[in-house]
């Protein structure tokens, strides 16, 4: 089997895949990755709630059960903890599995197998076992779904040594990072946001990987660096576009993988721009934005011309009513304001 490694180099602007590739939406890109992975590894298994459902997981899991059968595509009981443990057991016995949690809030039930077992087995047993499992959590929020159907919990997984955490923002990265995650020999937390599912972009038909731990420059700029995760890349690009008209050149970086983090890409951008805004639509305390800000303060302090700004959710649970949601979820205008704060003399 041949795999194309992403041709783009870290630090160079992304120009997208070669011209002529079909455009796919984000969910279809994931679906194609699952299809190609399952075709190539006849023992690989998908487990999750709602895999046979038309509405649970967008279009990302359609037709897989038809194609590969119920032995390998297992819609499972409402038992997040045991089923995630089962996926870990499969990995220990040499079967690669993707465990799908259609709502990340429910994945909290699976904290013991993820934190205490998947993350630690390789270390505790001195490398004699490894746990090549992908645990996919889907962020599904807005539309008055309220506090327990809204959370973006990437930071709690970043906190655990032994886990890798990826958050693709584009259809191209969704496919390439999913393939890379399944082929990685470590437990990988793969987080996608339903708000990204309407993104449409060229996606190669090839079986390719986007390597874990490599960020991407989504838009080059010279005045301010915005590091944005997942859906916030969309808002950051919009903010950059708005500010371009007033002569502010914004560089937008998508880390793509939160752990391991492409630190060098961030530092080299901050060395160029001298200003940093970190946008992560999650709780602020001990969050991904805090970690990135702390690293930049430690390693690129001498380049900074202004205090680092974070754009996150407020330190509060998600509300229900749209009037509250409207001010709860950060948007491009919040990023614009944060950028302007870094530009104040």
């Amino acid at each position: 089997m041949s795999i194309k490694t992403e041709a783009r180099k870290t630090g160079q602007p992304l120009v997208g895949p070669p011209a002529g590739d079909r455009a796919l939406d984000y969910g279809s890109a994931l679906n194609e990755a699952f299809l190609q992975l399952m075709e190539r590894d006849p023992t690989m298994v998908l487990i999750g709630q709602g895999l046979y459902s038309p509405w649970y997981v967008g279009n990302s899991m359609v037709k897989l059960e038809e194609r590969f059968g119920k032995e390998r595509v297992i819609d499972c009981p409402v038992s997040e903890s045991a089923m995630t443990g089962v996926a870990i057991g499969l990995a220990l016995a040499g079967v690669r599995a993707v465990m799908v949690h259609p709502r990340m809030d429910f994945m909290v039930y699976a904290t013991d197998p993820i934190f205490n077992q998947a993350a630690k087995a390789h270390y505790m047993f001195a490398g004699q076992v490894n746990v090549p499992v992908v645990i996919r959590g889907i962020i599904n929020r807005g539309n008055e779904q309220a506090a327990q159907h809204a959370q973006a919990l990437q930071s709690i997984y970043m906190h655990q040594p032994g886990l890798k955490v990826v958050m693709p923002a584009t259809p191209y990265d969704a496919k390439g990072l999913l393939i890379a995650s399944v082929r990685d020999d470590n437990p990988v937390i793969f987080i996608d946001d339903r708000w990204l599912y309407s993104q449409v972009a060229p996606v190669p038909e090839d079986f390719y990987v986007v390597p874990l731990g490599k960020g991407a420059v989504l838009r080059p700029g010279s005045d301010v660096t915005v590091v944005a995760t997942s859906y916030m890349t969309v808002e950051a690009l919009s903010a950059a576009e708005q500010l371009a008209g007033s002569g502010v050149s914004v560089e937008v970086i998508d880390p793509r993988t939160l752990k391991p983090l492409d630190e060098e890409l961030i530092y080299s951008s901050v060395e160029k721009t001298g200003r940093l805004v970190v946008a992560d639509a999650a709780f602020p305390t001990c969050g991904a934005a805090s970690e990135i800000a702390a690293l930049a303060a430690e390693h690129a302090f001498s380049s900074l011309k202004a205090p680092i700004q974070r754009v996150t959710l407020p330190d509060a649970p998600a509300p229900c009513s749209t009037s509250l949601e409207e001010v709860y979820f950060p948007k491009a205008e919040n990023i614009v304001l944060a950028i302007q704060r870094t530009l104040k003399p």
Partner: protein
Amino acid sequence: MTETLSGDSALWRAMYRAMLRIRRFEEAIGDCVESGEIIGPAHLYIGEEAVATGVCLALRRDDFIFGAHRSHGHYLAKGGDMAALAAEIFGKATGCSEGRGGSMHIIARDVGLLGTSALVGGGFGPGVGTALASRLQGRDRVTAIFFGDGATEEGIFFEALNFAALHHLPVIFVCENNGYSSHLRIQERQPIDTLYEHAAVYRIPSIRVDGNDVRAVHQTGLEAVDRARKDQGPTFIEAMTYRWRGHVGPKLDLDVGLRTREELDSWIARCPIENLANFMDEVGAWNPGERQAIDREVAQEVATAIGFARQSPRPDPSELLWHVYQD
């Protein structure tokens, strides 16, 4: 199954040796905890030897087992290397987990022990997962999951029973009911004390067995393994037993009022090793001097293992960050 003297005395000798290896090993570990040579927590299996022994002697080398925080006995009964276990409990680089795991995180991959979890109920998910893997890989390998009565109070216990029954997976749930979870008696934790009934709800064949009768445990284990091997689904075994030492370490927990001397003595009187030895005496299963020879060999093996652990180096500090990720 009808036991025949000629056919089974070899098996009984193997049972005796296996149980005695655990007993003498755990006693030595207890001594080393008291002397301060062992720093970390050691949960001793003394008194429960018949459960691990009876089940593991019914398994094949390539079958999987999962354990918990009290798993020295499972490791030894499945065929793990004694010296590597001792060294691990001592925190040494030559240990089965190279000093990264300690007493509660032990592994013997070559005999199907993929690593024990110290979280109560931690074996359920991965254990059932390996059984599913065997199914998908078309192998007739089975998985036995050992756990205590306390683990039947975890939600994942029911989740695992449900999924194993739903997919009739080749897995054996072995509940070591020793009547206590840490310090607390089962009567103060559950409204019932017939734990096998939990599994019956899921239509899993379930049986309560005298966990101090190694022959009975073994027979039950054979039937469960046979069922799993023939793809007839899971079995639940509730083995009634008792740990002689306290929850952790070598002490008896009598002084702190957790249980009575009478209760402990009543179980010591039902020692699984003496039980079997008495039976073998009665039926004349030993050759002259045979028991004493086994006793001497086991004592020597344990002394060698402890000596190996004592003399082994601790891991080098420069290796602190090894194995966090697989490259």
